[in-house]
């Protein structure tokens, strides 16, 4: 009798409810994700162009062939003949366009723009190795090798913080006022400042 009761009870339990209890619940979940932009910038960059690269930038080659000159006007005196090859020593690029790739990087979760500016454009000679100065001007930037250069560039599709945007910078350098102090064979000019700003738009 006892055995019969047990079997019956087990059967009733087995049909009345699943053998293993279970429960499921749902709840809404929220988080506020504010606009975020992270600028990775370089605190210092040293440009170290070689003499050959500088000469190429200034004039294309060294020596510079300024072209054939026919001198037809001479001043003659007894035992002498003097003419003047007046062709100026050109070409000479006063402003050397200098590009620095990967100057900065940006992560953002909202459309942003980058503005570059020169806050100190005078690279002063240190007085020991160099005198005078090199002048910076016309700074521009581009994002992700787009080929679009401007002082301010925009990125409408940031793609989230997992996407890194590469920023290049270019500016003119005017070397015409810089000189080396003998006997140094190279000189240091320094402390120009390029400022990079990121903002949402």
């Amino acid at each position: 009798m006892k055995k019969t009761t047990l079997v019956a009870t087990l059967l009733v339990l087995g049909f009345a409810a699943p053998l293993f209890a279970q429960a499921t619940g749902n709840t809404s979940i929220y988080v506020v994700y504010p606009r975020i932009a992270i600028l990775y910038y370089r605190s210092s960059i040293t440009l170290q162009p070689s003499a050959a690269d500088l000469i190429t930038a200034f004039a294309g080659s060294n020596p510079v062939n300024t072209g054939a000159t026919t001198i037809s006007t001479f001043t003659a005196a007894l035992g002498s003949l003097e003419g003047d090859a007046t062709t100026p020593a050109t070409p000479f690029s006063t402003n050397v366009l200098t590009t620095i790739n990967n100057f900065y990087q940006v992560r953002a979760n909202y459309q942003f723009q980058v503005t570059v500016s020169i806050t100190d454009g005078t690279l002063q000679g240190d007085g020991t190795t160099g005198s005078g100065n090199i002048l910076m001007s016309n700074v521009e930037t581009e994002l992700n090798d787009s080929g679009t250069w401007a002082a301010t560039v925009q990125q409408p599709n940031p793609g989230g913080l997992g996407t890194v945007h590469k920023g290049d910078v270019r500016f003119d350098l005017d070397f015409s006022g810089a000189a080396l102090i003998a006997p140094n064979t190279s000189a240091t000019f320094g402390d120009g400042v390029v400022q990079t700003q990121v903002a949402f738009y």
Partner: protein
Amino acid sequence: MLAPFLAALAVASQVQLELPPQLVLEPVSVEELAESTAVSWEGNPLPPLGVVVRRVPGALRLLLPIGVSPASFQLAAQVREFGNRQDQGLRVPVKVTVLPPRLVERRGDWEVWEADLVLHLDLSRASSGPLAGRLEVSVLGR
């Protein structure tokens, strides 16, 4: 002799789950993703983004008959369809961990066990704005 076993079997089939109607997590800050909004970087690979972790104390409650251990149940939680409404189809992966429940109170013949949730949010592809989704919790007898 078999009566206690039957009683235990009967009560083990009972479990109640309590969840709040909504969970509002603490807003994401730039400090937990990077040092600040401007990071000095000397051309090395960029530092990885910080992981956004949210611990929700007492996020869920289990009501079990006295004497029934929560260890006899498998607790699982997942977040579904979590994302920004503007980015339809783009979902933010969220990993959810349920921490071991602790006994917090007795209600008559029931014991109330409370468990914390830990959520890891992968925000690498998400756009800014409110992110919303659905937390689904299931309790299954082992």
